[in-house]
């Protein structure tokens, strides 16, 4: 139990397990931001995806239904964002924040409204089964790493696959190229016949849908227990927005970023255990306040933001037209 290697392995294992929703949220937001839209509604979007996905998944006792509904419900939030900011040219900051307010309101409204009818996850065997760790053949036998990376549940693998897929899509397909052009210079994309409206709508919906998958993951990771005071998402949506910046708008970097942010996030839980297991090397962890670990993702991101604005480097992945609405006849 107190075998240091076991504690370490468990710690590393949990970094992955607990923080994969961040990856979903981040990758979703990258897709949205690459289309030139700054959606501050990640938290609300994830919450909506989480609750509807979970309820549908329980009702149908099906993982696929859960994933699908969470994608669609969150996608609807994206569609709402698109209608308001793309078609109606509303301010993106205000719209995004309102999505969060609305989404959280809806989350609690639905959850509370269920009252006694709230389904426990144990009822839905398919969800329990779907969230059980799967050991990948051979790879899982690698000491420590096998447990950490290759003995996770299916949604972990799916999350990484989605990140890699989105990375490939953005950088190696023509639609991805066009999407990036829309976010960089919509006027240029428009002039060569890229349908800005279509690209924005599709990617805002798809990106939000991916965030919704992260919400569904959180629901399962919380064993589907609804609390009236605390939302499952618990600020992950905001961290995801930070992580987008940290990952420099690159989905593969987002995997790495998830591990870095997840490291701090999990360290606050495990600092005691780790200090106990390695009193010599890590005993000082006890002295570090847990709040610092919670704040570190935001501190790091703030530093990254400031540093990149000071250096103004060309390699920044931030879309040049991020946050600006496009109106073709503007002159």
């Amino acid at each position: 139990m107190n075998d240091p290697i076991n504690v370490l392995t468990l710690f590393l294992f949990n970094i992955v397990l607990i923080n994969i929703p961040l990856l979903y949220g981040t990758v979703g937001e990258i897709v949205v931001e690459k289309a030139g839209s700054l959606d501050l509604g990640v938290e609300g979007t994830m919450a909506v995806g989480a609750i509807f996905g979970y309820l549908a998944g329980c009702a149908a006792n099906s993982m696929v239904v859960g994933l699908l509904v969470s994608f669609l419900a969150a996608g609807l939030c994206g569609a709402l964002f698109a209608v308001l900011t793309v078609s109606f040219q509303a301010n993106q900051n205000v719209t995004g924040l309102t999505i969060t307010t609305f989404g959280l309101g809806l989350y609690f409204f639905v959850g509370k409204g269920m009252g006694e009818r709230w389904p426990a996850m144990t009822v839905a065997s398919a969800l329990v089964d779907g969230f059980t760790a799967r050991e990948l053949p051979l790879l899982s036998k690698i000491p420590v790493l096998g447990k950490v990376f290759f003995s996770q549940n299916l949604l972990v693998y799916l999350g990484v696959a989605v990140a890699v897929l989105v990375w490939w899509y953005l950088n190696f397909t023509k639609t991805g190229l066009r999407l990036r052009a829309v976010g960089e210079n919509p006027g240029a994309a428009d002039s060569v016949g890229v349908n800005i409206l279509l690209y924005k709508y599709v990617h805002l919906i798809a990106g939000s849908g991916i965030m919704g998958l992260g919400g569904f993951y959180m629901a399962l990771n919380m064993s589907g227990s609804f609390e009236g005071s605390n939302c499952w998402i618990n600020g992950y949506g905001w961290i995801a927005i930070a992580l987008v910046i940290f990952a420099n708008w690159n989905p593969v970097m987002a995997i790495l970023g998830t591990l870095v942010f997840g490291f701090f996030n999990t360290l606050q839980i495990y600092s005691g255990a780790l200090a106990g297991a390695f009193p010599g090397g890590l005993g000082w962890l006890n002295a570090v306040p847990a709040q610092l670990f919670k704040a570190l993702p935001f501190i790091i991101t703030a530093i990254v933001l400031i540093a990149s604005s000071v250096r103004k480097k060309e390699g920044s992945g931030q879309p040049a037209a991020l946050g600006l609405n496009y109106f073709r006849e503007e002159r």
Partner: protein
Amino acid sequence: MKNRQPLFHVVKRESGSPGRQILAYVAAVALALVVGAVLLAVQGVEPLTFYKQMLTMGIPGSRYPWRAVENFIKLFVPLLIVSLALALAFKMRFWNIGGEGQFIMGAFWAGVAAMNLGESLPRPAMVLVMAVAGALGGGVYGLFVAALKVRFGTNETLLTLMLNYIALYFLQFFAETKADWNFFLDPESARPKFAKFPASAQMITIPIGPFNLNLSLVIALALCALIFAYLNYTKRGYEIAVVGDSPNTARYAGMKVGKIVLRTIFISAALIGMAGAFHVSSAGVMSASPTNDVGWTGIVVAWLAKLNTVGILVAAVLITVLQFGCQTASATYPAIDANFANLLQGVILFIVLAADFFTRFKLVRRGGKEAVK
């Protein structure tokens, strides 16, 4: 396919009419209430009775009606001040979404003052010191971002967002750390728990019969008038208007745009910090999450009001009624709580944002006939 034509063609409207806007807003609120009613009915709650209870905020028939009003004011004052302050920043198109963080910093420094000086200063002086400490705490926190924005063009939206959470965990550190040096905590309690402020650090109230008028309401309303005057009559307010309208024109007129941004953001963040100070002073105790989302809601209020001072007063009342009303009504309806207010708030803003489109743009049918006036 080559003769495919879109039904409408969007063009910018030359001018908007205020009548149309007010109409849009009334419609938005009404429509939101209808959406809410449907949701309530789905939940098995009788919408009309709920709304009645919500809008009267449980005041009639209450045993302590004045207590309800006092609590309403405690909710209303921070929202009003924060919304006013955010409007200052938004007028210059500075996207300060760091109201939460600035509020927390204000509350924190006010708390520091209260816990350390509370015993030695008389109440009026103490409340003043807390207000100043809160204003400085919030103001400096905002100024930091403004300076980076002016100097390096740092994205203020994302940076203020990050600073919100940094402030939150900073405060939580003091809330959850039991230590000898931590003057915030109650030494009697074994668990970390905020100690009550000394009596002199509690917000001054003016007794009017059974009702205790919270001084911060008077100050907030005075601020309302002051900011109205500041924006509309003073040179500084004039500069804000020009910079917000057209930074190029401001430079052309010889204004120092950077300096104006710094000054205005400092004032904006300082007011938010002061609201934080008033909040903890009125509560008489620190809290680990003192904001009640006022930094976010303030954005909604400011936007609903089109950054207009009088409009902010109206919108802040409306939103507080929604929130406080839902809170009190939830005593009767366990399934519904304050979050229902957030939901309604969201729906109202969605409709207003959509309606704004029709006041800024118009749809023209091809051939020049206007389809929607």
